[in-house]
């Protein structure tokens, strides 16, 4: 999925794999799962789900694809369908688990759901550049963080479709940079620590 130059479209790959699957090549689905699961994982996590919750959501999305396979008329829309299904299900799970947290009167509160998307990057930041980026990233509105986190995992030809599936307005990103990326870029370029190569 991380093709050299980042120009390979996952949407096209998904479309051809899904078409092959429907033509009776089950191993095509295997390729589709291998190439797309990371994007679905980060979509679910960006909605604030815990690891186990996100795993369930991703798995259920794939199951739903098998069960809905005959109803998906346009293979070109498969990537968007997968992302949209993941986001909606993640949102529903996140809402449900917040409600359960409120009911939990034992005081043994689970970690704040929103905080799970707040992963720590301190521990994994390997360079000053990464630390700087993360600090400015955390200053973005939550919606921008959700979008850019998934976009960063996607390939460029898929940006617009990913943003659309995440429920962002048209023009949020791709082919133009959109407001979220513009904010992050401007903040970084205005920071003396972000050396310009």
């Amino acid at each position, binding site marked *: 999925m991380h093709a050299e130059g980042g120009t390979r479209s996952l949407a096209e790959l998904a479309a051809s794999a899904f078409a092959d699957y429907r033509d009776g090549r089950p191993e095509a689905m295997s390729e589709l799962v291998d190439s797309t699961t990371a994007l679905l994982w980060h979509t679910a996590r960006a909605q604030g789900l815990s690891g186990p919750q996100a795993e369930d959501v991703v798995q259920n999305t794939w199951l739903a694809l098998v069960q809905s396979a005959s109803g998906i008329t346009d293979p070109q829309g498969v990537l968007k369908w997968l992302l949209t299904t993941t986001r909606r299900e993640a949102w529903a799970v996140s809402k449900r688990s917040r409600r359960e947290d409120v009911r939990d009167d034992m005081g043994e509160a689970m970690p704040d759901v929103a905080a799970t998307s707040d992963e*720590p990057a301190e521990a994994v930041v390997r360079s000053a550049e990464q630390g700087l*980026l993360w600090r400015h990233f955390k200053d973005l509105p939550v919606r921008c963080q959700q979008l850019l986190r998934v976009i960063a995992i996607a390939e460029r030809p898929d940006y617009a479709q990913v943003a659309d599936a995440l429920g962002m307005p048209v023009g949020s990103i791709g082919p133009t940079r*959109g407001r979220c990326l513009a904010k992050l870029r401007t903040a970084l370029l205005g920071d003396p620590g972000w050396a310009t190569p």
Partner: protein
Amino acid sequence: MSGSWEDQGWDGQDWKGQAWDGPDWEAAAAGEIDEQDLRVLATLRTVVQASDPVPSGLAERAKFAMSVAALEAEIAEITTTTAELAGVRSTQYDRAGTITFSSDQLSAMITIEVVDGGNARLSGWVSTGSTHVELRERSRTQETTTDDAGRFTFSSVERGMIHLVMRRLDDPQSRPVITPAIEI
């Protein structure tokens, strides 16, 4: 899904008190993605992948769940719990391993031997009468049918995760039986 930013809960003022709207932001947002943007996103990708890696095995578990659902299959349980099985699953690929499975409909046993350091040979036995056996490898599928004694063989199996799907030919109405993933 594509309403205005305000529909999405943006009030135009929610970022450090600065307005979202304004000629500078509009111009920056309307610009084409350039090398700087790609550097920002590449750095973000590195941080996100390191801080929140995709759980190992997630894709494999999803595929298995999909196969079960697509086939409406019964899942056989692995009944062997000996060191032999651990040998198959370990990284020491030079050992042979025997695994037994059982489901409501049938029992099966397979033996895996690595042939000259490359592919593996898989031989097995199914307790029912004539049975169609499908071997699902990573990128291909092989099929065979058991002989009169219930035996079957696949002489060249790719390393990696495999499943077997067994269909009883003596009872075409029965559900297929699928094994959990086996790593060879």
